[in-house]
């Protein structure tokens, strides 16, 4: 269900916690599973739960509680824009509007070619570098002017 590489990564996470507390690794395991599968289908969550020896529902509770897990399919490139107040004062909302126009989609939508999904994010803890975007959860793009956004989208479109 998950690749040997992913399982190796999950095992490394499990080793961080006491032997009887494997469930502590569920957040990391779901993150690793999502990185491989792009989103968390019910069977993926079930697999992770069984792998860690915890009830499927408990893993589902975690997957549905934290914002960065995707329980629905997303595009190849998920772009999350922070529009919270400190960012908005330095153009976070303008950056979001620019992206919407450029990609022709609204928040929580995916381009017809399946390449881009746009999300509105909450505070990413980088307000001094506004506007801030997150690419596929793990790469933060800071001080994103219109030109920088153009460059990013162009690169990801290749």
């Amino acid at each position, binding site marked *: 269900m998950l690749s040997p590489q992913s399982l190796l990564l999950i095992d490394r996470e499990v080793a*961080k*916690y*006491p032997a009887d*507390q494997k*469930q*502590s*690794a*569920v*957040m*990391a395991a*779901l*993150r690793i599973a999502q990185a491989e599968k792009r989103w968390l289908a019910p069977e993926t969550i079930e697999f992770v739960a069984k792998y*860690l020896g*915890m009830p499927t529902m*408990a893993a589902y*509770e*975690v997957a549905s*509680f*934290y*914002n*960065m*897990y995707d329980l629905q399919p997303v595009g190849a490139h998920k772009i999350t824009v922070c*529009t*919270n*107040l*400190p*960012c*908005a*004062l*330095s*153009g976070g*909302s*303008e*950056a979001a509007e620019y992206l919407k126009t450029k990609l022709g989609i609204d928040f929580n939508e995916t381009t017809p070619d399946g390449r881009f999904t746009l999300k509105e*994010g*909450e*505070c*990413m*803890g*980088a*307000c*001094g*570098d*506004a*506007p801030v975007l*997150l690419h596929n*959860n*793990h*790469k*933060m793009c800071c*001080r*994103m*002017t*219109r030109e920088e956004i153009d460059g990013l989208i162009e690169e990801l479109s290749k």
Partner: protein
Amino acid sequence: MSEHKLILADLDGDRSWRLADYAQRRGYEALKKIVAEKIAPDDIIATLKTANLRGRGGAGFPTGLKWSFMPKAYTGPKYVVCNSDEGEPGTFKDRDILRYNPHAVIEGMIIAGYTMGCVAGYNYIHGEIFEVYERFEAALDEARAAGLLGRNILGSDFSFELFAHHGYGAYVCGEETGLLESLEGKKGQPRFKPPFPASFGLYGKPTTINNTETFASVPFILRMGGETFLNLGKPNNGGTKIFSVSGHVNRPGNYEVQLGTPFAELLEMAGGMRGGRRLKAVIPGGSSAPVLSGELMMELTMDYDAIAKAGSMLGSGAVIVMDETTCMVKALERLSYFYFEESCGQCTPCREGTGWLYRMMRRLEHGEGRAEDLDLLDNVAENIMGRTICALGDAAAMPVRGFLKHYRDEFAYHIEHKRCLVPVELQREGSRIYVRQD
């Protein structure tokens, strides 16, 4: 006055995070001395108390006192946890500490482990900063390879393990018991207190949780002595503090200054007001702290007591600066949406109240406010305050009360005229994309 850097001193983007670089900055000296001289844990706690180090995450609780709460006679495992789940809008200091000076945090946590007799520690890192999490893991690898972590640290009989745990997007996990639940692999819903973490924490074991900046301060305090650290700040507000300055300034960023530094000087360090516009309002301690007027802020010093006396709080040191182009109704609407979005749903007053506040703010901002809404906003906020398990409820209510207290006229104008006092074009001009040029 200028910056007075301890934690942020001599850092750069590429090398300062490495162990060798940290050692050149006298890193791990404090730990080595403690281990070599077998310094008594009570002496370490006494030094922190003298230093008057107060929790840098938001609550400002005295760190030495917190460490003294851990049961000494307990024979099972005890834990130390670092709260790097930095998600309070306006706060971005821990990210810089972790990516430029991670070993200061690691050293502080090892010393905490030694002082409180803990077997292991976890650093819970905010979900959106995955690259920083990876760097912290690399720093941990360096520390392990150097014998600073693991069994028999530096040849002593003290053993301590330290790991990083990556969050995945939930503001409420910045609340310490929500964080513990999350560390246990559950939804991050805060626990009812008491029992406090010092008696029932991670996996039900005694646990102490401190903020990243708090741990990072510890090695500096032990090297310079409690008295010297205290004197950097002012009585009851020891040391330096990192302020994250965001919003309408020329140079948004982190500034480490002595506690008690006038706000006017901090603003100057941040390059002053963008475009020379007039300062309208400041949220001095992260989005949960009540907003204060620009005039009032210009009279205040940046320390726990001065900001509290003015009716707000220093919180995490997140200073959100707003100029005259800012619509206060729109600002509060955005913050209200945040708390509504992030409420964990456990307590009815917060779950229902944050939605109610947001819906009212939304209609006010969109010219559909009703005459009775201002009193109702006050009423709902008041009825959330103090009626929830954790502080997220209060955090949602306090901005509402602060904005209404200082800018009630502006809210009333929205209701009466169905539009904003600040022309829309001016608002747009003020919130254009702006990045500092260095």
